[in-house]
């Protein structure tokens, strides 16, 4: 896996190593009201300026609390939503301004796996027809050939191909998610965006689906964007992990680096709040309670969006909006670190530092 072939330092990588390059992605949802003519009275700033690259063959994890904008970001990357601002370049093509017709070829290369294995499969259609949808939509294979391909896919994801004519209701949650995986795999895409693919499943089933996704990645050289709020799942599958808070990417690093040396106070709090099955580790990790609620994305805080809840917040944090910067040394002229670990924080947490507000 990725540990065997260490990534060259940032900046020296060839450009076509990046499958997706997103810059300044912004997605606002308008709130409208009015008697006859609706006028806009506000905006939900779901994603508010995110820069992100997804490298070929990697699994990029995205974590954050509910409502932090990670699912919206995923739908921006796949252009299910039009962008309010910013640019998404996929495989060398700028897809941010393409219309529906122009997006069609792109739809073959990018697929999604959804959170709800019940909601993402049309209950009125047979499984064979659901998995065959990509073929039908892109006119790839017809009749007997389509059926053969669909059954191959079913076998590939661990479903009995004889169940071709069954309905989603005939399958368990885990099997349904396999159907979703088969559908995503049908056109051999370059990128699969998994939006909380296992959070609706039992823990025992989660492992099976994750194993399936990992083996498919090896076999077909897939790239994943993997969204979850379960930190241990993300730790297990990801090569790099991004942490989101209120529509912003606040930290991004190689998975081990991020889990061992989190720089952003929010990441530290997030990691400390997550339980860990290892009692030895659990003792070492102390819980840090965040005070207050997540602020509204309609009217986010000024400066650093985390400052009202941050134990390290100082005056500067409420005024000055931090940008992603490498390392923890914020002094001018500091040596840039080459491990690609970036944090949007004025006062990053240093190794061994103990945050206030713990229990």
């Amino acid at each position, binding site marked *: 896996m990725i540990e065997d072939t260490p990534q060259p330092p940032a900046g020296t990588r060839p450009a076509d190593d990046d499958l997706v390059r997103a810059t300044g992605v912004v997605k606002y949802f308008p709130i409208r009201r009015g008697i006859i003519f609706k006028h806009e009275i506000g905006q939900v700033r779901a994603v508010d300026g995110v820069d992100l690259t997804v490298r070929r063959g990697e699994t990029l994890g995205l974590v954050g609390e509910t409502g932090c904008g990670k699912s919206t970001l995923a739908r921006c990357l796949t252009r299910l939503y039009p962008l309010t601002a910013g640019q998404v370049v996929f495989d060398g093509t700028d897809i941010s301004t393409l219309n529906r017709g122009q997006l069609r070829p792109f739809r073959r290369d990018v697929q*999604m796996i959804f959170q709800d294995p019940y909601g993402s499969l049309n209950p009125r259609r047979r499984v064979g027809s659901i998995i065959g949808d990509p073929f039908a939509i*892109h006119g790839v294979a017809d009749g007997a050939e389509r059926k053969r391909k669909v059954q191959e896919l079913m076998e590939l994801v661990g479903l009995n191909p004889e169940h071709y004519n*069954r*309905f989603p209701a005939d*399958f368990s949650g885990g099997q349904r998610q396999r159907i979703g995986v088969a559908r995503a795999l049908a056109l051999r895409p370059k990128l699969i965006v998994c939006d909380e693919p296992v959070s609706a499943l039992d823990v025992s089933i989660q492992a099976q689906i994750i194993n399936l996704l990992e083996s498919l990645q090896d*076999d077909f050289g897939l790239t994943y964007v993997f969204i979850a709020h379960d930190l241990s799942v993300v730790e297990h599958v990801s090569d790099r992990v991004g942490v989101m808070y209120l529509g912003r990417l606040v930290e991004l690093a190689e998975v081990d680096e991020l889990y061992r040396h989190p720089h952003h106070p929010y990441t530290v709090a997030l990691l400390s709040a997550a339980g860990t099955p290892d009692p030895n580790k659990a003792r070492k990790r102390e819980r840090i309670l965040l005070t207050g609620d997540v602020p509204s994305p309609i009217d986010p805080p000024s400066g650093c969006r985390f400052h009202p809840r941050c134990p390290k917040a100082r005056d500067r944090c409420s005024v000055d909006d931090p940008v992603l910067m490498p390392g923890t040394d914020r002094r001018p002229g500091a040596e840039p670190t080459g491990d690609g670990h970036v944090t949007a924080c004025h006062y990053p947490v240093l190794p061994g530092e103990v945050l206030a507000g713990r229990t």
Partner: protein
Amino acid sequence: MSTTELFESAEVPTIDTSGTLGRSPWQLAWARLRRDRVALVCGAFIVLLGLVAAFAGPLSKLIGWSPTQQDRINGLTPDGLPAPPSVHHLLGTDNLGRDVLVRVIYGTRVSLAVGVAAAVAAVLIGVIVGLIAGYFGPAVDAIVSRLMDVVLSFPFLLFAIALVSVVGPSELVEIGVIAFFSWAAVGRIVRGQTLSIREKEYIEAARSLGASDRRIMFVDVLPNLVAPVLVYTTLLIPVSIVFEATLSYLGVGIIPPTPSWGNMISDAQDVYQQAWWFLLFPGIALIATTLAFNLLGDSVRDALDPRTERLFAK
């Protein structure tokens, strides 16, 4: 871990083959419907009605009277009143000495044809309009929904009468009028359903695959609408039949001498004190038909969605 290894470790799909697997929701509903005795009886009755309507001609030949033929011998009593049921006329005669049984049989044809055609037309319009309103976003929705509100707040019987008075009565006009005042109710239901289906993840999945709006509407949305629409159609047919009978009763539906249950009852109104059979038999035919469709509609609803409460608890 390779895929083959995965096969060994992954859950083996252990599914019992207890008979419900792989059967479509329709097959399941059909199985439930077939176990429903009320549905069977009503269904059989409706099939019988259909046969009577289809073979009205041969039946009337068998009985020996045509629907517009006046019996100059036994058709009227010496006072000039309708003749009561007898060996000559099993269900008696009407005010012009015509056979009530044959006219009721021909009335079945009108009632079913107009009722079913109007209901189907209303459902077709309602589904298309409702689908468009629900699928194509707030701007289209606002306009179409207002339109449906306007149609629904029409005092429809009054309007129907006014409309027929201008265009002139005929079967086709009647079907059109009934459909025109019924589609909006279907449209509203379909719109609501479409709005909720549109938010489902499988619609988003289809979009992420690059499916066109038309494909999503017909392949993903429509199949989910069939159940409520089917129920609504069965319940709309009796409403349309009564609507037809009412228009005919008020003299703006089927024009005499073509018999319909409504215009028979209208004629009977003048002589009901002397000739109960003339009022009763078309009345019974009308009530039995609406009852059968109502009960069947309720059973169909029950079979398609066992969770909802029946309109008529057993």
